[in-house]
Protein backbone atom coordinates (compact mmCIF):
# COMPACT_ATOMS: atom_id res chain seq x y z
CA UNK A 1 0.00 0.00 0.00
CA UNK A 2 1.48 3.41 -0.89
CA UNK A 3 1.95 6.03 1.79
CA UNK A 4 -0.86 8.56 1.75
CA UNK A 5 -0.04 12.24 1.52
CA UNK A 6 0.22 14.29 4.68
CA UNK A 7 -1.31 17.72 5.14
CA UNK A 8 1.13 19.25 7.61
CA UNK A 9 2.01 22.69 6.21
CA UNK A 10 5.43 22.51 7.88
CA UNK A 11 6.42 19.73 5.53
CA UNK A 12 6.25 21.59 2.22
CA UNK A 13 9.97 22.17 1.73
CA UNK A 14 11.26 18.77 0.77
CA UNK A 15 14.92 17.79 0.76
CA UNK A 16 16.30 18.14 -2.78
CA UNK A 17 17.46 15.09 -4.73
CA UNK A 18 21.24 15.65 -4.45
CA UNK A 19 20.95 16.17 -0.68
CA UNK A 20 18.93 12.99 -0.27
CA UNK A 21 21.25 11.00 -2.53
CA UNK A 22 24.38 12.11 -0.68
CA UNK A 23 22.75 11.32 2.65
CA UNK A 24 21.43 7.95 1.47
CA UNK A 25 24.97 7.01 0.45
CA UNK A 26 26.36 8.28 3.80
CA UNK A 27 28.55 10.69 1.88
CA UNK A 28 27.27 13.89 3.46
CA UNK A 29 24.93 14.34 6.40
CA UNK A 30 22.50 17.23 5.87
CA UNK A 31 22.04 20.00 8.44
CA UNK A 32 19.82 19.32 11.45
CA UNK A 33 16.75 21.08 10.03
CA UNK A 34 16.90 19.00 6.85
CA UNK A 35 17.48 15.80 8.82
CA UNK A 36 14.45 16.51 10.97
CA UNK A 37 12.37 17.25 7.89
CA UNK A 38 13.42 13.95 6.31
CA UNK A 39 12.48 12.07 9.47
CA UNK A 40 9.04 13.71 9.79
CA UNK A 41 8.11 13.81 6.12
CA UNK A 42 6.75 10.50 4.81
CA UNK A 43 7.61 11.46 1.24
CA UNK A 44 11.26 12.24 1.94
CA UNK A 45 11.57 9.25 4.24
CA UNK A 46 10.16 6.95 1.55
CA UNK A 47 12.63 8.42 -0.96
CA UNK A 48 15.55 7.96 1.44
CA UNK A 49 14.70 4.34 2.17
CA UNK A 50 14.15 3.64 -1.51
CA UNK A 51 17.56 5.13 -2.40
CA UNK A 52 19.25 3.16 0.36
CA UNK A 53 17.74 -0.09 -0.88
CA UNK A 54 19.44 0.48 -4.24
CA UNK A 55 22.88 1.17 -2.77
CA UNK A 56 25.44 -1.33 -1.54
CA UNK A 57 25.83 -1.50 2.23
CA UNK A 58 28.32 0.97 3.68
CA UNK A 59 31.58 -0.89 4.30
CA UNK A 60 32.89 -1.18 7.84
CA UNK A 61 36.46 -0.28 8.77
CA UNK A 62 39.01 -2.85 7.69
CA UNK A 63 39.56 -3.95 11.27
CA UNK A 64 35.87 -4.85 11.54
CA UNK A 65 35.48 -6.47 8.14
CA UNK A 66 35.11 -9.95 9.64
CA UNK A 67 32.85 -9.01 12.53
CA UNK A 68 29.19 -10.13 12.55
CA UNK A 69 26.69 -7.37 11.71
CA UNK A 70 25.71 -5.12 14.62
CA UNK A 71 22.21 -6.62 14.50
CA UNK A 72 23.68 -10.06 15.24
CA UNK A 73 25.81 -8.67 18.07
CA UNK A 74 22.74 -7.03 19.56
CA UNK A 75 20.64 -10.18 19.17
CA UNK A 76 23.39 -12.13 20.94
CA UNK A 77 23.49 -9.57 23.74
CA UNK A 78 19.74 -9.99 24.17
CA UNK A 79 20.01 -13.78 24.06
CA UNK A 80 17.84 -13.92 20.95
CA UNK A 81 20.10 -16.15 18.85
CA UNK A 82 19.75 -19.91 18.58
CA UNK A 83 21.72 -22.86 17.26
CA UNK A 84 24.52 -22.41 14.75
CA UNK A 85 24.08 -18.65 14.53
CA UNK A 86 24.51 -18.31 18.29
CA UNK A 87 27.57 -20.57 18.30
CA UNK A 88 29.13 -18.62 15.46
CA UNK A 89 28.68 -15.22 17.13
CA UNK A 90 29.80 -16.66 20.47
CA UNK A 91 33.00 -18.01 18.96
CA UNK A 92 33.73 -14.63 17.37
CA UNK A 93 33.11 -12.74 20.61
CA UNK A 94 35.61 -14.92 22.42
CA UNK A 95 38.25 -13.64 20.03
CA UNK A 96 37.21 -10.08 19.28
CA UNK A 97 37.57 -7.47 21.99
CA UNK A 98 35.59 -4.90 20.02
CA UNK A 99 32.59 -7.16 19.54
CA UNK A 100 32.80 -8.19 23.21
CA UNK A 101 32.68 -4.48 24.02
CA UNK A 102 29.66 -4.02 21.75
CA UNK A 103 27.85 -6.84 23.55
CA UNK A 104 28.63 -5.19 26.89
CA UNK A 105 27.49 -1.76 25.68
CA UNK A 106 24.29 -3.23 24.21
CA UNK A 107 23.48 -5.00 27.46
CA UNK A 108 24.21 -1.89 29.45
CA UNK A 109 21.88 0.15 27.24
CA UNK A 110 19.10 -2.37 26.66
CA UNK A 111 19.07 -4.72 29.61
CA UNK A 112 20.85 -3.59 32.72
CA UNK A 113 19.28 -1.31 35.33
CA UNK A 114 20.12 2.33 35.01
CA UNK A 115 22.50 2.94 37.96
CA UNK A 116 25.14 0.65 36.47
CA UNK A 117 25.55 2.75 33.36
CA UNK A 118 28.93 4.23 32.78
CA UNK A 119 28.08 7.14 30.52
CA UNK A 120 28.20 10.66 31.80
CA UNK A 121 24.61 11.36 30.82
CA UNK A 122 23.52 8.32 32.84
CA UNK A 123 20.13 7.05 33.57
CA UNK A 124 18.41 10.16 34.76
CA UNK A 125 17.71 10.94 31.12
CA UNK A 126 15.35 8.00 30.92
CA UNK A 127 13.33 8.79 33.99
CA UNK A 128 11.09 11.74 34.49
CA UNK A 129 12.75 14.49 36.53
CA UNK A 130 11.61 14.68 40.17
CA UNK A 131 11.35 18.07 41.84
CA UNK A 132 10.67 18.46 45.53
CA UNK A 133 8.19 21.20 46.40
CA UNK A 134 8.76 23.26 49.51
CA UNK A 135 6.20 24.79 51.83
CA UNK A 136 5.76 28.55 51.34
CA UNK A 137 3.60 31.18 53.08
CA UNK A 138 -0.01 31.38 51.89
CA UNK A 139 -0.65 34.49 49.82
CA UNK A 140 -4.11 36.11 49.51
CA UNK A 141 -4.46 35.45 45.78
CA UNK A 142 -3.98 31.72 46.29
CA UNK A 143 -6.77 31.67 48.82
CA UNK A 144 -9.04 33.50 46.40
CA UNK A 145 -8.40 30.98 43.68
CA UNK A 146 -9.25 28.15 46.00
CA UNK A 147 -12.39 29.85 47.22
CA UNK A 148 -13.57 29.94 43.64
CA UNK A 149 -13.54 26.17 43.47
CA UNK A 150 -16.45 25.70 45.84
CA UNK A 151 -18.08 27.24 48.85
CA UNK A 152 -15.52 28.39 51.37
CA UNK A 153 -15.43 26.34 54.55
CA UNK A 154 -14.52 28.09 57.74
CA UNK A 155 -12.56 25.04 58.86
CA UNK A 156 -10.62 24.77 55.64
CA UNK A 157 -6.87 24.48 55.93
CA UNK A 158 -4.73 25.76 53.11
CA UNK A 159 -1.12 24.98 52.42
CA UNK A 160 0.96 26.25 49.53
CA UNK A 161 4.05 24.57 48.10
CA UNK A 162 6.42 25.87 45.43
CA UNK A 163 8.79 24.22 42.98
CA UNK A 164 10.56 25.73 39.97
CA UNK A 165 8.06 28.49 39.31
CA UNK A 166 5.04 26.28 39.97
CA UNK A 167 2.79 26.77 43.00
CA UNK A 168 0.65 23.99 44.38
CA UNK A 169 -2.15 25.05 46.70
CA UNK A 170 -3.85 22.40 48.79
CA UNK A 171 -7.05 22.76 50.75
CA UNK A 172 -8.33 20.23 53.23
CA UNK A 173 -12.03 20.06 54.17
CA UNK A 174 -14.19 17.45 55.83
CA UNK A 175 -15.67 15.03 53.31
CA UNK A 176 -19.35 14.99 54.10
CA UNK A 177 -19.92 11.94 51.95
CA UNK A 178 -17.77 9.76 54.20
CA UNK A 179 -17.64 10.48 57.91
CA UNK A 180 -14.18 10.97 59.37
CA UNK A 181 -12.50 11.48 56.02
CA UNK A 182 -11.38 14.55 54.11
CA UNK A 183 -11.46 16.15 50.70
CA UNK A 184 -8.15 17.39 49.36
CA UNK A 185 -8.53 20.02 46.64
CA UNK A 186 -5.50 21.19 44.76
CA UNK A 187 -4.71 23.92 42.33
CA UNK A 188 -1.58 24.34 40.25
CA UNK A 189 -0.54 27.80 39.16
CA UNK A 190 2.60 29.00 37.45
CA UNK A 191 4.83 32.04 37.62
CA UNK A 192 5.48 33.95 34.44
CA UNK A 193 9.03 32.66 34.52
CA UNK A 194 8.02 29.01 34.67
CA UNK A 195 8.67 26.89 31.60
CA UNK A 196 5.40 25.92 29.89
CA UNK A 197 3.98 22.54 30.81
CA UNK A 198 0.95 20.31 30.51
CA UNK A 199 -0.39 19.02 33.83
CA UNK A 200 -1.41 15.39 33.48
CA UNK A 201 -2.12 13.41 36.65
CA UNK A 202 -2.01 13.68 40.42
CA UNK A 203 -1.26 10.82 42.72
CA UNK A 204 -1.81 10.47 46.47
CA UNK A 205 0.57 8.19 48.33
CA UNK A 206 0.21 7.01 51.90
CA UNK A 207 3.38 7.33 53.92
CA UNK A 208 3.93 4.48 56.32
CA UNK A 209 5.51 4.87 59.72
CA UNK A 210 8.72 6.83 59.15
CA UNK A 211 10.65 4.46 61.38
CA UNK A 212 9.67 1.51 59.18
CA UNK A 213 11.35 3.17 56.14
CA UNK A 214 8.76 1.58 53.87
CA UNK A 215 8.08 3.03 50.42
CA UNK A 216 4.91 5.13 50.21
CA UNK A 217 1.98 3.29 48.64
CA UNK A 218 -0.30 4.78 46.01
CA UNK A 219 -3.86 5.18 47.28
CA UNK A 220 -5.40 7.30 44.51
CA UNK A 221 -4.61 8.69 41.09
CA UNK A 222 -6.71 11.37 39.42
CA UNK A 223 -6.45 13.49 36.27
CA UNK A 224 -5.49 17.15 36.57
CA UNK A 225 -8.35 19.09 35.01
CA UNK A 226 -7.76 22.14 32.82
CA UNK A 227 -4.02 22.00 33.59
CA UNK A 228 -4.80 23.17 37.12
CA UNK A 229 -7.26 21.36 39.35
CA UNK A 230 -7.30 18.01 41.10
CA UNK A 231 -9.26 16.47 43.95
CA UNK A 232 -8.85 13.48 46.23
CA UNK A 233 -11.91 12.40 48.20
CA UNK A 234 -12.53 10.05 51.15
CA UNK A 235 -9.00 10.63 52.43
CA UNK A 236 -8.58 9.17 55.95
CA UNK A 237 -6.38 11.04 58.43
CA UNK A 238 -2.71 10.22 58.09
CA UNK A 239 0.57 11.19 56.47
CA UNK A 240 0.70 11.44 52.68
CA UNK A 241 2.79 12.46 49.70
CA UNK A 242 1.34 14.02 46.58
CA UNK A 243 2.97 13.58 43.19
CA UNK A 244 1.95 15.87 40.35
CA UNK A 245 2.90 14.67 36.91
CA UNK A 246 3.62 17.51 34.49
CA UNK A 247 4.84 17.03 30.94
CA UNK A 248 8.45 17.75 31.86
CA UNK A 249 8.76 16.85 35.54
CA UNK A 250 7.21 15.22 38.56
CA UNK A 251 6.52 17.62 41.41
CA UNK A 252 6.62 15.88 44.77
CA UNK A 253 4.91 17.36 47.81
CA UNK A 254 6.65 15.20 50.34
CA UNK A 255 4.75 15.86 53.52
CA UNK A 256 1.00 16.38 53.67
CA UNK A 257 -0.62 15.60 56.98
CA UNK A 258 -4.38 15.10 56.80
Amino acid sequence: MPWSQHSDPGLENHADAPTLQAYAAYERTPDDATLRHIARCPQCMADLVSLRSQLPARPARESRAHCPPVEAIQAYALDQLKGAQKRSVEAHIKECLRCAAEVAASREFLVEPAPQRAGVAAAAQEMIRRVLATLVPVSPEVNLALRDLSAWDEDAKVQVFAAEGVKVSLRKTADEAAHGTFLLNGEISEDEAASPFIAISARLLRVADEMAEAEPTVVAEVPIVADSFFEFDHVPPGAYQIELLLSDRLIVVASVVV
Partner: protein
Amino acid sequence: MSQPRDLGLDILAHRCVQESIKYRAHFDNDPHYCLELWRRALGDKLGEAWTWLFDCYEDQVRRWLHSHPLAFAVLKVESESYFITETFARIWQANERKPLKVDDLGKIIEYAKQTLNTVILALCRKQRPDGLDDDQDVANEDPPTLGLSMEEFIQGKISARELWDCIMASTHDALEQQLVYLMWLCEWRPREIVAAFPAVYGSTKRVDQMRANIVERVRRRCPHLVPANVRR
Protein backbone atom coordinates in the same frame (compact mmCIF):
# COMPACT_ATOMS: atom_id res chain seq x y z
CA MET B 1 -15.00 8.04 26.55
CA SER B 2 -14.02 7.83 22.86
CA GLN B 3 -12.21 4.75 21.64
CA PRO B 4 -8.71 5.39 20.25
CA ARG B 5 -9.88 4.23 16.81
CA ASP B 6 -12.50 6.99 16.70
CA LEU B 7 -10.13 9.83 17.54
CA GLY B 8 -8.61 12.30 15.11
CA LEU B 9 -4.84 12.14 14.73
CA ASP B 10 -4.13 15.34 16.66
CA ILE B 11 -6.11 14.20 19.70
CA LEU B 12 -4.71 10.71 19.44
CA ALA B 13 -1.16 12.06 19.36
CA HIS B 14 -1.85 14.33 22.34
CA ARG B 15 -3.14 11.34 24.34
CA CYS B 16 -0.19 9.28 23.20
CA VAL B 17 2.23 11.88 24.59
CA GLN B 18 0.33 12.05 27.88
CA GLU B 19 0.19 8.28 28.27
CA SER B 20 3.89 8.00 27.43
CA ILE B 21 4.75 10.52 30.15
CA LYS B 22 2.62 8.54 32.61
CA TYR B 23 4.42 5.37 31.57
CA ARG B 24 7.82 6.95 32.20
CA ALA B 25 6.71 8.19 35.60
CA HIS B 26 5.21 4.79 36.49
CA PHE B 27 1.72 6.24 36.72
CA ASP B 28 -1.33 4.26 35.57
CA ASN B 29 -1.39 4.49 31.79
CA ASP B 30 -3.37 3.25 28.84
CA PRO B 31 -1.24 1.95 25.94
CA HIS B 32 -4.10 1.84 23.44
CA TYR B 33 -3.71 5.43 22.28
CA CYS B 34 -0.04 4.98 21.41
CA LEU B 35 -0.66 1.61 19.83
CA GLU B 36 -3.36 3.09 17.62
CA LEU B 37 -0.95 5.80 16.46
CA TRP B 38 1.73 3.19 15.65
CA ARG B 39 -0.92 1.10 13.84
CA ARG B 40 -2.06 4.00 11.68
CA ALA B 41 1.55 4.99 10.87
CA LEU B 42 2.97 1.53 10.18
CA GLY B 43 -0.07 -0.65 9.52
CA ASP B 44 -2.29 1.75 7.59
CA LYS B 45 0.74 3.70 6.32
CA LEU B 46 -0.93 7.06 6.80
CA GLY B 47 1.67 9.73 6.10
CA GLU B 48 0.16 12.18 8.55
CA ALA B 49 0.21 9.51 11.26
CA TRP B 50 3.92 8.98 10.57
CA THR B 51 4.59 12.69 11.16
CA TRP B 52 2.61 12.62 14.42
CA LEU B 53 4.41 9.45 15.45
CA PHE B 54 7.75 11.18 14.92
CA ASP B 55 6.58 14.21 16.90
CA CYS B 56 5.47 11.97 19.77
CA TYR B 57 8.63 9.87 19.99
CA GLU B 58 11.41 12.23 18.91
CA ASP B 59 12.11 13.27 22.50
CA GLN B 60 12.02 9.70 23.70
CA VAL B 61 14.66 8.67 21.15
CA ARG B 62 16.74 11.69 22.14
CA ARG B 63 16.60 10.68 25.81
CA TRP B 64 17.63 7.13 24.92
CA LEU B 65 20.51 8.47 22.85
CA HIS B 66 21.88 10.46 25.77
CA SER B 67 21.62 7.47 28.10
CA HIS B 68 23.66 5.22 25.78
CA PRO B 69 27.13 4.38 27.08
CA LEU B 70 28.65 5.47 23.74
CA ALA B 71 26.65 8.68 23.39
CA PHE B 72 29.57 10.86 24.48
CA ALA B 73 31.65 9.46 21.60
CA VAL B 74 29.18 9.20 18.74
CA LEU B 75 27.84 12.69 19.38
CA LYS B 76 31.33 13.96 18.51
CA VAL B 77 30.88 12.41 15.07
CA GLU B 78 27.23 13.11 14.22
CA SER B 79 24.47 15.28 15.66
CA GLU B 80 21.45 14.19 17.71
CA SER B 81 19.26 14.70 14.63
CA TYR B 82 21.31 12.16 12.68
CA PHE B 83 20.68 9.39 15.22
CA ILE B 84 17.00 10.22 15.54
CA THR B 85 16.49 10.32 11.77
CA GLU B 86 18.45 7.10 11.23
CA THR B 87 16.40 5.34 13.91
CA PHE B 88 13.14 6.31 12.22
CA ALA B 89 14.55 5.47 8.80
CA ARG B 90 15.47 1.96 9.97
CA ILE B 91 12.01 1.47 11.46
CA TRP B 92 10.45 2.56 8.16
CA GLN B 93 12.79 0.31 6.21
CA ALA B 94 12.07 -2.72 8.43
CA ASN B 95 8.34 -2.14 8.10
CA GLU B 96 8.68 -1.99 4.32
CA ARG B 97 10.53 -5.30 4.27
CA LYS B 98 8.15 -7.03 6.65
CA PRO B 99 5.25 -5.26 8.39
CA LEU B 100 6.08 -4.78 12.05
CA LYS B 101 3.63 -6.13 14.61
CA VAL B 102 1.98 -3.33 16.51
CA ASP B 103 -0.08 -5.22 19.06
CA ASP B 104 2.22 -4.78 22.06
CA LEU B 105 3.41 -1.29 22.92
CA GLY B 106 6.21 -2.50 25.17
CA LYS B 107 7.64 -4.58 22.33
CA ILE B 108 7.43 -1.87 19.71
CA ILE B 109 9.10 0.65 22.04
CA GLU B 110 11.78 -1.90 22.84
CA TYR B 111 12.25 -2.44 19.11
CA ALA B 112 12.70 1.30 18.56
CA LYS B 113 15.31 1.44 21.33
CA GLN B 114 17.15 -1.54 19.88
CA THR B 115 17.08 0.16 16.49
CA LEU B 116 18.80 3.20 17.95
CA ASN B 117 21.42 0.90 19.50
CA THR B 118 22.25 -0.58 16.09
CA VAL B 119 22.53 2.92 14.60
CA ILE B 120 25.03 3.88 17.30
CA LEU B 121 27.09 0.69 17.01
CA ALA B 122 27.14 0.92 13.22
CA LEU B 123 28.44 4.47 13.37
CA CYS B 124 31.21 3.44 15.79
CA ARG B 125 32.33 0.79 13.35
CA LYS B 126 32.35 2.99 10.29
CA GLN B 127 33.21 6.55 11.14
CA ARG B 128 35.91 8.44 12.94
CA PRO B 129 35.69 11.96 14.35
CA ASP B 130 35.16 14.51 11.62
CA GLY B 131 38.03 16.60 10.32
CA LEU B 132 40.80 14.20 11.29
CA ASP B 133 40.20 11.65 8.54
CA ASP B 134 42.43 13.53 6.16
CA ASP B 135 45.22 14.09 8.63
CA GLN B 136 47.95 11.84 7.31
CA ASP B 137 49.87 11.77 10.59
CA VAL B 138 46.81 10.53 12.43
CA ALA B 139 45.89 8.07 9.70
CA ASN B 140 49.32 6.48 9.99
CA GLU B 141 49.06 6.20 13.76
CA ASP B 142 48.09 2.78 15.02
CA PRO B 143 45.03 2.62 17.21
CA PRO B 144 45.90 1.96 20.86
CA THR B 145 46.19 -1.72 21.69
CA LEU B 146 46.41 -3.73 24.83
CA GLY B 147 49.54 -5.30 23.50
CA LEU B 148 47.78 -8.57 22.82
CA SER B 149 48.05 -10.24 19.47
CA MET B 150 45.04 -11.68 17.67
CA GLU B 151 46.80 -15.05 17.71
CA GLU B 152 46.49 -15.19 21.48
CA PHE B 153 42.76 -14.69 21.21
CA ILE B 154 42.42 -17.20 18.43
CA GLN B 155 44.38 -19.83 20.33
CA GLY B 156 41.76 -19.49 23.03
CA LYS B 157 44.22 -18.47 25.69
CA ILE B 158 42.26 -15.37 26.44
CA SER B 159 38.55 -14.75 26.21
CA ALA B 160 37.84 -11.30 24.84
CA ARG B 161 34.64 -11.18 26.85
CA GLU B 162 36.48 -11.86 30.10
CA LEU B 163 39.14 -9.37 29.15
CA TRP B 164 36.61 -6.65 28.39
CA ASP B 165 34.86 -7.21 31.73
CA CYS B 166 38.22 -7.05 33.46
CA ILE B 167 39.17 -3.83 31.65
CA MET B 168 35.91 -2.15 32.64
CA ALA B 169 36.23 -3.37 36.22
CA SER B 170 39.75 -1.93 36.34
CA THR B 171 38.66 1.60 35.53
CA HIS B 172 38.39 4.06 38.39
CA ASP B 173 35.86 6.53 37.06
CA ALA B 174 33.59 7.51 34.18
CA LEU B 175 36.46 9.33 32.46
CA GLU B 176 38.56 6.18 32.30
CA GLN B 177 35.57 4.13 31.13
CA GLN B 178 35.05 6.64 28.34
CA LEU B 179 38.69 6.38 27.37
CA VAL B 180 38.41 2.59 27.28
CA TYR B 181 35.41 2.82 24.94
CA LEU B 182 37.17 5.36 22.73
CA MET B 183 40.41 3.38 22.45
CA TRP B 184 39.30 -0.21 22.30
CA LEU B 185 35.79 -0.09 20.87
CA CYS B 186 35.73 2.99 18.64
CA GLU B 187 39.45 2.59 17.77
CA TRP B 188 40.14 6.30 18.07
CA ARG B 189 43.77 7.26 18.13
CA PRO B 190 45.17 9.41 20.97
CA ARG B 191 45.29 12.51 18.77
CA GLU B 192 41.68 12.01 17.76
CA ILE B 193 40.68 11.61 21.39
CA VAL B 194 42.48 14.78 22.40
CA ALA B 195 41.06 16.69 19.43
CA ALA B 196 37.52 15.63 20.31
CA PHE B 197 37.85 16.17 24.09
CA PRO B 198 40.61 18.75 24.56
CA ALA B 199 39.40 19.95 27.94
CA VAL B 200 39.07 16.42 29.28
CA TYR B 201 42.21 14.64 28.11
CA GLY B 202 44.50 17.58 27.40
CA SER B 203 47.35 15.87 25.56
CA THR B 204 48.28 12.59 23.91
CA LYS B 205 50.81 12.14 26.69
CA ARG B 206 48.00 12.16 29.24
CA VAL B 207 45.97 9.70 27.13
CA ASP B 208 48.99 7.39 26.93
CA GLN B 209 49.53 7.67 30.68
CA MET B 210 45.89 6.90 31.45
CA ARG B 211 45.98 3.95 29.07
CA ALA B 212 49.16 2.61 30.70
CA ASN B 213 47.58 2.93 34.15
CA ILE B 214 44.52 1.01 33.04
CA VAL B 215 46.59 -1.74 31.42
CA GLU B 216 48.67 -2.02 34.59
CA ARG B 217 45.56 -2.38 36.71
CA VAL B 218 44.14 -4.99 34.31
CA ARG B 219 47.39 -6.90 34.55
CA ARG B 220 47.28 -6.90 38.35
CA ARG B 221 43.58 -7.61 38.60
CA CYS B 222 43.48 -10.41 36.03
CA PRO B 223 47.05 -11.68 35.61
CA HIS B 224 45.83 -14.77 33.77
CA LEU B 225 44.36 -12.53 31.04
CA VAL B 226 47.29 -10.27 30.28
CA PRO B 227 50.77 -11.67 29.63
CA ALA B 228 53.58 -10.05 31.61
CA ASN B 229 55.34 -8.86 28.46
CA VAL B 230 52.45 -6.59 27.51
CA ARG B 231 53.52 -3.17 26.27
CA ARG B 232 52.58 -0.65 28.99
